[in-house]
């Protein structure tokens, strides 16, 4: 592919590892952004963002307008969802969702009326005058989440502002096939830059750096043009060499700053904050036009896609509609996301979500992961490809032997699951699958352990309580007995005379008895002696 000759405006550092897979990008970035006819129904996944499931606030049969809130945030770590078009809610039920598990989850099903009529939009009169809280509230209410792939609610990411000195706009788009960020910049660079400006207003004295791979010369030109027109000379372009996974958050930070995000910390701890170009665009729309996030740019591509390109697609649009609308052949394998980090869909009746940046309608043999795995020959190709400087061959060795403590010792949880190791593996081992298995097992074990610990604590607390009750009871009894004894003693003192008389009488009687039985007692003593001798 063509490379940009633009020289980066900031120094670029190196990242370890990385791969150069075939890019397949020209297939989808040669045409302008288009729209497809609306689908017959939209299936809106309530768990379409990182965090908690949104809570539906519409009822079946209710008519909604485009942009109207249909589901609310469940707590802070969640997002609002809006109707992607006007129409009627026909069901709130479980449908297959866009998730690697391929499982069903609660979805709102909307039947479009075809009018695509917006509800009343509350746009902000003057962004300059809005304070930080107001801007964040607007971003929150418009359901903006990170559009780079993780769907992390943007308002949470923007919350921390102390010590942040650089805003990085992620336009690297390093994964093969995907071109939606590239096209968005080519056609809407101005809006993206304005969105970045809005974000930068949330911080004091912040630098803006756009990180982009050199395989997007047109997008780089478009940014320069827009920057000139908008007179935003504070925005710097960091052009990085094309290498997967340079667009990973940690990797792009390393490329642009030479720093590593410390294990267990966030980029904000380094004074950095990163947003995707699509997110900037969405924030711009949310603040200037008051438009909530109801659609996104999606790359439709793959050998079986007959009209590859980038399309504005309302959320919830089922993938089978996209296949039909582009007159594509039935895909052999249907991938949501890119070929490196995406996931396969179990079938095409799945609505797209805020994280869906790409749909690959692959032909037979287009994707190479079907081969049988052979034994690991420890060639170390995976190690040379790992951007996190892990030892994938060791992680694999321990993961497949269920030696999870060893896998953790080799920093399993620092694996970003980029798939570079599996891509280069000559033995065709699905390495990432093994790491996911190990990670989830370890997480489950931790939960189980926690549960067991809680149960143990509860048990011990109960035992202690029972023990205490027993002790207290015993103590009470002891005290009661003492009290009785004391009382008896007291009573005894009072009756001392009576007792003395009785005792005297008893002594007299005993004496009489003793005299009577003297003879018989002597006989008995003798027989006792004989008996004891016999025993010896």
């Amino acid at each position: 592919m063509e490379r940009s000759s633009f020289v980066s405006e900031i120094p670029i550092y190196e990242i370890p590892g990385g791969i150069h897979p075939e890019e397949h990008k020209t297939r989808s970035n040669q045409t302008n952004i288009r729209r497809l006819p609306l689908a017959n129904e939209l299936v809106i996944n309530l768990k379409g963002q990182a965090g908690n499931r949104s809570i539906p606030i519409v009822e079946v049969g209710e008519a909604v307008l485009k942009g109207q809130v249909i589901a609310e945030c469940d707590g802070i770590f969640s997002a609002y969802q809006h109707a992607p078009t006007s129409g009627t809610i026909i069901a709130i039920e479980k449908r297959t969702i866009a998730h690697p598990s391929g499982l069903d989850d609660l979805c709102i099903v909307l039947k479009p009326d075809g009018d695509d009529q917006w509800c009343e939009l509350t746009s902000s009169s003057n962004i300059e005058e809005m304070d930080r809280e107001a801007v964040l509230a607007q971003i929150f209410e418009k359901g903006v989440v990170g559009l780079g792939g993780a769907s992390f609610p943007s308002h949470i990411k923007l919350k921390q502002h102390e010590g942040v000195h650089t805003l990085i706009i992620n336009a690297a788009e390093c994964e093969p096939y995907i071109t939606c960020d590239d096209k968005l910049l080519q056609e809407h660079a101005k809006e993206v830059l304005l969105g970045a400006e809005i974000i930068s207003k949330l911080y004091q004295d912040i630098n803006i750096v756009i990180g982009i791979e050199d395989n997007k010369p047109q997008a780089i030109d478009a940014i320069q043009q827009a920057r000139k027109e908008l007179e935003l000379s504070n925005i710097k372009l960091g052009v990085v060499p094309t290498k997967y996974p340079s667009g990973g958050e940690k990797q792009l930070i390393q490329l642009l700053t030479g720093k590593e995000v410390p294990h267990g910390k966030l980029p904000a701890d380094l004074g950095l904050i990163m947003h995707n170009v699509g997110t900037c665009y969405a924030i711009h729309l949310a603040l200037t036009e008051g438009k909530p996030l109801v659609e996104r740019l999606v790359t439709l591509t793959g050998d079986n896609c007959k009209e590859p390109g980038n399309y504005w697609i309302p959320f919830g649009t089922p993938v089978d509609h996209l296949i039909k609308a582009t007159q594509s052949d039935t895909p052999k394998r249907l991938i949501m996301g890119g070929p490196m980090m995406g996931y396969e869909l179990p079938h095409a009746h799945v609505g797209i979500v805020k994280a869906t940046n790409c749909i690959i309608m692959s032909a037979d043999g287009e994707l190479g992961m079907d081969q049988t795995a052979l034994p690991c020959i420890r060639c170390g190709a995976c190690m040379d490809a790992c951007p996190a400087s892990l030892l994938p061959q060791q992680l694999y060795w321990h993961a497949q032997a269920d030696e999870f403590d060893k896998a953790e010792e080799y920093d399993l949880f620092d694996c970003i699951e980029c798939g570079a190791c599996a891509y280069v593996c000559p033995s065709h081992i699905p390495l990432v699958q093994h790491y996911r298995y190990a990670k989830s097992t370890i997480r489950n074990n931790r939960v189980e352990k926690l549960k067991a610990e809680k149960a143990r604590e509860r048990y011990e607390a109960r035992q202690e309580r029972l023990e205490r009750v027993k002790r207290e009871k015993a103590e009470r009894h002891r005290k009661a007995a003492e009290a009785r004894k004391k009382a008896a003693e007291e009573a005894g003192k009072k009756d001392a005379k009576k007792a003395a008389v009785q005792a005297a009488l008893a002594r007299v009687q005993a004496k009489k008895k003793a005299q009577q039985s003297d003879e018989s007692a002597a006989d008995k003593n003798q027989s006792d002696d004989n008996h004891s001798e016999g025993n010896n």
Partner: protein
Amino acid sequence: MALLSSPFAKKTNSVTQMMLWVVGATLPGLFVLMYFFGVGVLVNLVIACTTALVAEALILKLRNRPVMPILWDGSAFVTAWLLALALPPLLPWWMTVLGTAFAIVFAKHVYGGLGNNIFNPAMVGYVLLLISFPLEMTTWLPPQSLAENPVGAIEAVSIIFTGAASNETTIDMLKQGVDGYTMATPLDHIKTELAQGYRIPEAETAPIIKGLSGAGWQWVNLAFLAGGLVLMAKKVIGWQIPIAVLLGMGLIALPLFFANSDYYLFPMFHGFAGATMLGAFFIATDPVTASTTAKGRWIFGIGIGAITVLIRTFGGYPDAIAFAVLLMNMAVPMIDYYTKPRTYGHADKKRKASEGVK
């Protein structure tokens, strides 16, 4: 059709491809060996490869493993191929069979098959033969150009399979050099001369020590070097281990040479003598038994080079690549453990992940 998990993209490479490249890259060395030492080299190859494939198939069957896919990975073939290249050209056939079968069955499959063996199978087979049959294993023919009685193809086959040549020439006659002395390899010759009280400059006057590292052998080494460089360029092998092996040799040989050049060979001689280049580029780079960490590869390679020169100089054997490789194979788990790279975002590799980072 089961759901796959990412990544879906795959580089078009395979173990079989790697193995084929290794075999292909030995061809220059093989041709030079055949030029100097006759058809016997080729006969050894055929015997060894057949034995390896049969042994591999049988043991896979015994272990209830799929035979064809694993046979096709080519690893057994490469083991036999490399072992055969290290064998003397007129070795009795049954020794070749024994060494190869031992390599496949004991050095490889007893440990669990491809990927699980600790020791380089070809070198285990080689050392077994070297220790069991030291005479036969050190009986190299003089390079063709020096030989009084060059060996023809029929004689070679006849000697390998029956122990005697068809036209009444004996192996002892074939071993005669032009000057009537029994020939050995250059390394062997130097060792013998030194033991008899000669100095290196005197030993080097023999016709077998000609040029860089002795007649024939320097060309064999150059040819293996050429093939090895192709493998490097093709990224079938990393460049670190071969360079490290040569570096390790230099580290020991150079100070010795400067200390006393009467007793110690010039480092370049070591580099192009014996099995150096075959060992550095084709044997030490066996991925299964080599170290796999970035630093570990250097330690592993330097260790092999250093041990080789030490044994060649002070030990009882004229060449020592096989011993050096096996010794370093043993150290690999430890090397790998102590040379873990620093993971992204971790301050210090010695610090455990759970302890966090400053």
